[in-house]
């Protein structure tokens, strides 16, 4: 996921320092050069990089680090703290009007993802804040932009206000407010046309819309892959419109997203959201502190937990726990579990949020298809077999293999794994809290742990520990 390559570079830069005795000034110089290059390669703005490395260097030169027994650790800490400070300390919330219609306005360059993210925000606010959103199609220039928003509205079941492409955007916005009032909608999200920050005519249009509706949020949508120019673009939009927040899009790619660091530092505009995919629910709050941890490969457990809480049905989970305990856990439940996990999204992305896992994942290719295969195999079982896993014999397995288009070996593996899982679950559930605690400590062995499970550093083509 985002920031990975940066964390690797930093880690290797810091490795030269960690685990050694006292630091010399020279050591710090070398390290700072690495940090500087890696930040530049991550598209962090040049000036920001300069300032950043200077700040880190000065702190690293302090007595505390030079005389410390673990100078590397100290430097990591400083870099982490500085990164955090650079991106703003806390996650920033959206501003809503207490009464009346809240208005958001999406602005940005062409192709940054305004229309898609207008849609994402609409369902985000509906789900999270119980808002009744209206999407307004004010991009009359790009061919079929209105169509795009209308289609998104249909997919989300959110009303879209449009007046075609012949009416002035300011007029469209004016009318949309009336429409929102009469239809009792309390959140208006205006999708404006993409424009270059140096296009005065179109910038004036935005100013006019702003003047008219006084939006509660003006959100600048920025492509996370933007290079050095991100700062110029953001500053220029900010100067002319007083942007209230930024949405960083396309962070699901392998861009290092240095733009995030620069924008905040140079303009002071907080980054409020990050877009993580083309699907309309792939929007997350931007957490500067967590992002700083992620940059350094320190994991992002909080995001993981939050994600799990949102996607997993609690009642369902409790029912599952009971089943584990009584060992009535069967293939139907297994299938349900897989569904739950898949709801969380991309597995590799999830695993990367776990501290320490990030950098080890590179050589492991997690094939999401394996889940599909498992589901196919379970679907090929009879209801009787699913409820009574023990009845699976050779002929039944052969039939399942045939029915699901897998080979018998795979069915065997599934059966074996299922058995091991059941055993482990039972052990865990019957443990007392103290044992549990001990187990959770790093390095402790899980009862019944499958030997192939972690294979640290074993290299390429590792299968997911699960299958």
């Amino acid at each position, binding site marked *: 996921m985002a920031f990975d390559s940066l964390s690797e570079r930093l880690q290797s830069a810091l490795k030269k320092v960690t685990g050694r005795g006292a630091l010399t000034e020279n050591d710090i110089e070398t390290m700072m050069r690495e940090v500087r290059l890696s930040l530049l390669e991550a598209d962090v703005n040049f000036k920001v990089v300069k300032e950043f490395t200077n700040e880190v260097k000065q702190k690293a030169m302090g007595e505390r680090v030079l005389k410390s027994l673990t100078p590397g650790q100290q430097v990591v800490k400083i870099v982490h703290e500085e990164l955090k400070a650079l991106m703003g300390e806390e996650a920033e919330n959206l501003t809503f009007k207490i009464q009346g219609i809240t208005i958001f306005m999406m602005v940005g360059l062409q192709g940054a993802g305004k229309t898609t993210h207008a849609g994402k925000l609409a369902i985000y606010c509906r789900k999270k804040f119980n808002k009744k959103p209206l999407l307004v199609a004010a991009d009359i220039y790009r061919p079929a932009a209105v169509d795009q928003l209308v289609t998104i509205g249909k997919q989300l079941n959110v009303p879209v206000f449009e007046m075609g492409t012949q009416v002035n955007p300011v007029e469209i916005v004016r009318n949309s407010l009336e429409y929102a009032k009469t239809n009792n909608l309390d959140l208006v999200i205006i999708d404006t046309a993409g424009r270059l920050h140096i296009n005065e005519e179109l910038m004036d249009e935005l100013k006019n819309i702003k003047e008219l509706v006084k939006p509660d949020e003006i959100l600048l949508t920025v492509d996370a892959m933007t290079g050095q120019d*991100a700062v110029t673009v953001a500053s220029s939009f900010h100067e002319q419109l007083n942007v209230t927040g930024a949405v960083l899009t396309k962070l699901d790619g392998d861009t290092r997203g240095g733009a995030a660091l620069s924008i905040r530092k140079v303009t002071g505009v907080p980054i409020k959201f990050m877009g993580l995919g083309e699907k309309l629910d792939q929007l997350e709050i931007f957490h500067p502190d967590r992002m700083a941890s992620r940059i350094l490969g320190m994991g992002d457990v909080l995001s993981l937990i939050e994600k799990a809480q949102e996607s997993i049905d609690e009642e369902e989970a409790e029912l599952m726990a009971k089943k584990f305990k009584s060992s009535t856990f069967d293939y139907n439940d297994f299938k349900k579990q897989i569904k739950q996990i898949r709801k969380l999204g991309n597995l590799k992305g999830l695993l990367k949020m776990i501290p320490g896992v990030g950098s080890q994942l590179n050589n492991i290719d997690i094939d999401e298809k394996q889940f599909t295969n498992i589901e196919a195999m379970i679907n090929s079982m009879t209801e009787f077999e699913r409820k009574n896993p023990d009845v699976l014999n050779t002929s039944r397995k052969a039939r399942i293999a045939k029915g699901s288009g897998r080979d018998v070996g795979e069915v065997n593996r599934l059966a074996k794994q299922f058995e091991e899982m059941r055993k482990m679950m039972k052990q865990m559930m019957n443990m007392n809290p103290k044992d549990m605690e001990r187990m959770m400590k790093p390095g402790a062995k899980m009862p019944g742990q499958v030997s192939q499970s972690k294979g640290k550093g074993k290299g390429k083509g590792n299968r997911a520990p699960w299958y």
Partner: protein
Amino acid sequence: MGLFNNLKNIFGKNKNQITKEENEIIEKAEKYKKGMEKTRNTMMSRLKSLFESYDVINDDLFEELEEIFIMADIGVSTVLEVINKLRADVRMRNITDMSEFQKIIVDKMFEIYVKGEIVNTNLNINDEGLTVLLFVGVNGVGKTTSIGKIAHKLQSEGKKVMMAAGDTFRAGAINQLKVWAERVGCECVTKQEGSDPAAVMFEAIQEAKAKNVDVLLCDTAGRLQTKTNLMKELEKIYRVINKEIPGAPHETLLVIDATTGQNGMNQAKAFTEATNVTGIILTKLDGTAKGGIVLAIRNELGLPIKFVGLGEKIVDLEYFDIEQYIYGLFSDMFE
């Protein structure tokens, strides 16, 4: 001093000495100059003040030069390479004169791009039968718009053009291409949203063959290069086209947004792996972004830039010309 003097000769000439051919070059240069005005202004003003503040060529000067190139998004490793070569040149030829140094900078940039080859920016057109051009790239770089502009260009060159709406995923993408087809006045083969893009290509090729079309322009959905499944889909599209017409697609053009930073390199690598990219279209060069990453891509992967987008109008797409591009970056030096 190859390029530098060449350019200087042409642009320094008295108006009535200019031949027709040279006049065309100048006209094209004006377009670049206008499109890249913002780029040039920032970069030039920095270069200028840099040269004004130094009397001697020293380490500080090189360091600042490095900054200027990095600010143009030319990749870090390519920048380091250029700077090292410059250092070597200065040392070997014992250069102390500032204006001489400026010339060397321009020529080095040119070398990085040309690499001793003749760079062909012309499209590989199949003279006997149908030519297929495939457009690929990440989301929001301007694939569809570029197709519209190139269709217009080819049509005005007398070719019969057809479009294939291979972006069946993004909302409104098919209609967007249709609008362009109407503007250009060519046909556009479409299927329903959500249908298999490879099937769209297959049908489009059959239709193009039947209707004696010269060039078929194939749109694809934007995809981040890290999405394995989507890249596989692209491989399939490529395979299907290749199966229908041996040797096709005659060009696979990767569209890159000029604001793109270092990630452009990853894009070029991944898309080349999937579809054998033959050239690059650099879009949105009319903003303040410099699109320097294409120099790094050319330097590290050898991919040439075929077109640049210099504005929003249908005619604002030009065949890429390295001399013009560099002129756009450094034009103040020639005046």
